[in-house]
């Protein structure tokens, strides 16, 4: 049994046919994950006891003839910004190095109820702030496809775990591209669902109006299965949507012929090199499948980076205020007064990128600047959302690049924060509008580096997005 090639569906069949047990799968997945970790640094911790208990529960259900759930026995990796009761959750930060959450995130509860087996927690940029995973306090993740290169970020560990085959699926979080970009860099499927589609209860807050939880998988089908499990209203997250959750996996095989697709002109103008060629080749494949492709214009795109980095840093500066040395494990030992304790704990605990964003966010919210920066950015966000609403009057889906370039070398961009921010351009717009978007692999460069193609659809039309991505995946492989 090579678990690196197993899908959720194949595991279900194998369990039903008694080819293998869930405990066998979990044991082998844990062995692979632990053995591979010195190479990738994808995991920050492992949870063998929890994994084996979950696997045993699946085997017992099967023995009793009960339905073990859509994720029965499936090894899952969980990004370390998502809380797991009793299992250390660091957010990639020195501040939370010893933090043991007292409760589980709703997404974690749901995936375990569906039979999922959590192997461990994955490395990420500190508090999910970064595009390369180099901002983790516990060292960068190496891209399993090219070990001298970054896996993307911030959910780099989850992407690497799935690409490396230790986990069949993984949970990540996405605020401005943190699922789609690492999925593209590592050659896996990564999905950012509609804002509100998945409960954020238990997701460590970074920028609350932009944060999402979403799946990584090696196939569109597995991503659809995982999203179906974690999606839906949760009374513990007031922003979670009431909209009913369709059976995404059952709707995968529908027709895509005649679907109207838009290519945003502004996304392709500056796109060059092999990334441009591979995405355009993907568009040709979609045309061959009978989709109608036309150009659309999304003029607010040019303001998107500025808009995003004002809003996300403003919200982050507020959300990260809670790490002040009172409740969350770390406290600077050399502080006499309360204020020194706050300031030193934060100054010693946060890494450079978190500090940079807290500073920027505090600045744009400070007296005299609020209207010029924050309010203006919120209005520009309205323009970005309007671009999407207009485009979706003409087309059923948008097709775009994910990143301007494939995975870059470790250390290549760390000294230029603005350049790093600017590379988020193609993923940020969808985040601002809150529409569902995903990265699906569309090939590799001559050097073997994976490239993803992005598909975006209307609010709550994950079904349409998955159907198109699935048809593309079947045609491309």
């Amino acid at each position, binding site marked *: 049994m090579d678990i690196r090639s197993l899908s959720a569906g194949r595991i279900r069949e194998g369990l039903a046919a008694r080819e293998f047990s869930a405990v066998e799968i979990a044991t082998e997945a844990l062995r692979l994950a632990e053995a591979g970790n010195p190479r990738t640094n994808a995991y920050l911790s492992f949870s063998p006891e929890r994994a084996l208990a979950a696997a045993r529960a699946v085997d017992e259900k099967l023995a009793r003839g009960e339905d073990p759930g859509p994720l029965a026995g499936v090894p899952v990796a969980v990004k370390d910004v998502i809380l797991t009761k009793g299992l250390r959750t660091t957010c990639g930060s020195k501040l939370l190095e*010893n*933090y*043991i959450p*007292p*409760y589980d995130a709703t997404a974690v509860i749901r995936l375990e109820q569906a039979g999922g087996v959590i192997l461990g927690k994955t490395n990420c940029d500190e508090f999910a702030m970064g595009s390369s995973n180099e901002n983790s306090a516990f060292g960068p993740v190496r891209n399993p496809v090219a070990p001298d290169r970054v896996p993307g970020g911030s959910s780099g560990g989850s992407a690497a775990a799935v690409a490396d085959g230790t986990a069949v699926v993984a949970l990540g979080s996405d605020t401005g591209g943190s699922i789609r970009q690492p999925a593209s860099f590592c050659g896996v499927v990564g999905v950012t669902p509609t*804002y*509100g589609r998945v409960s954020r209860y238990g997701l460590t807050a970074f920028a609350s*109006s932009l944060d999402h939880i979403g799946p990584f998988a090696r196939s569109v089908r597995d991503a659809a299965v995982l999203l179906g499990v974690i999606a839906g209203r949760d009374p513990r997250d007031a922003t979670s*949507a*009431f909209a009913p959750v369709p059976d995404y996996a059952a709707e995968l095989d529908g027709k895509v012929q005649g679907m109207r697709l838009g290519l945003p002109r502004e996304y392709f103008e500056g796109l060059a090199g092999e990334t441009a060629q591979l995405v355009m080749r993907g568009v040709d494949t979609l045309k061959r499948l009978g989709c109608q492709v036309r150009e659309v214009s999304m003029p*607010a795109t*040019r*303001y998107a980076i*500025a*808009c995003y*980095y*004002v809003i996300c840093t403003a919200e982050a500066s507020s959300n990260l*205020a809670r790490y002040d*040395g*009172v*409740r*969350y*494990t*770390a*406290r600077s030992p050399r*502080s*006499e*007064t*309360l204020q020194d*304790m706050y*300031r*030193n704990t*934060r*100054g*010693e605990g946060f890494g*450079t990128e978190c*500090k940079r964003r*807290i*500073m*920027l966010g*505090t*600045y*744009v919210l400070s007296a005299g600047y609020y209207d010029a*920066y924050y*309010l*203006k*950015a*919120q*209005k*520009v*966000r*309205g*323009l970005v*959302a*309007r671009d999407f609403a207009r485009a979706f009057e003409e087309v059923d889906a948008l097709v775009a690049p994910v990143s301007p370039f494939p995975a870059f070398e470790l250390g290549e961009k760390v000294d230029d*924060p*603005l350049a790093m*921010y*600017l590379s988020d351009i193609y993923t940020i717009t969808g985040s601002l509008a*809150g529409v569902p978007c995903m990265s699906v692999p569309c090939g590799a460069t001559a050097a073997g580096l994976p490239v993803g193609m992005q598909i975006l659809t209307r609010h709550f039309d994950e079904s349409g997005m998955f159907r198109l991505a699935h048809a593309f995946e079947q045609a491309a492989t």
Partner: protein
Amino acid sequence: MKISEEEVRYVAALANLTLTGEEIQRFAAELSGILTHVETLNEADTEGVEPMAQVLHEAGETATLREDVEGECLDREAALANAPLSGAGCFKVPRVVER
């Protein structure tokens, strides 16, 4: 937009963040660069555009009010378990009021 080291120190105090001298220098330069890019926002015509604070969706009739029922709650011990210092069922911090 040029940010001075003095402004960096002021903002760091607002953010309750101790910065090293090196960080103050570095952030003055980096924030200046980032805010210069942010100024592109001024070119956007937002006349008559509502500020978008949140992605809003259609919601059912029960979206705003739910039954007032008691839910589960963390017990005190669990809530305090991650505190760097606690005692008498409370979070402990350095003294703020002189006796």
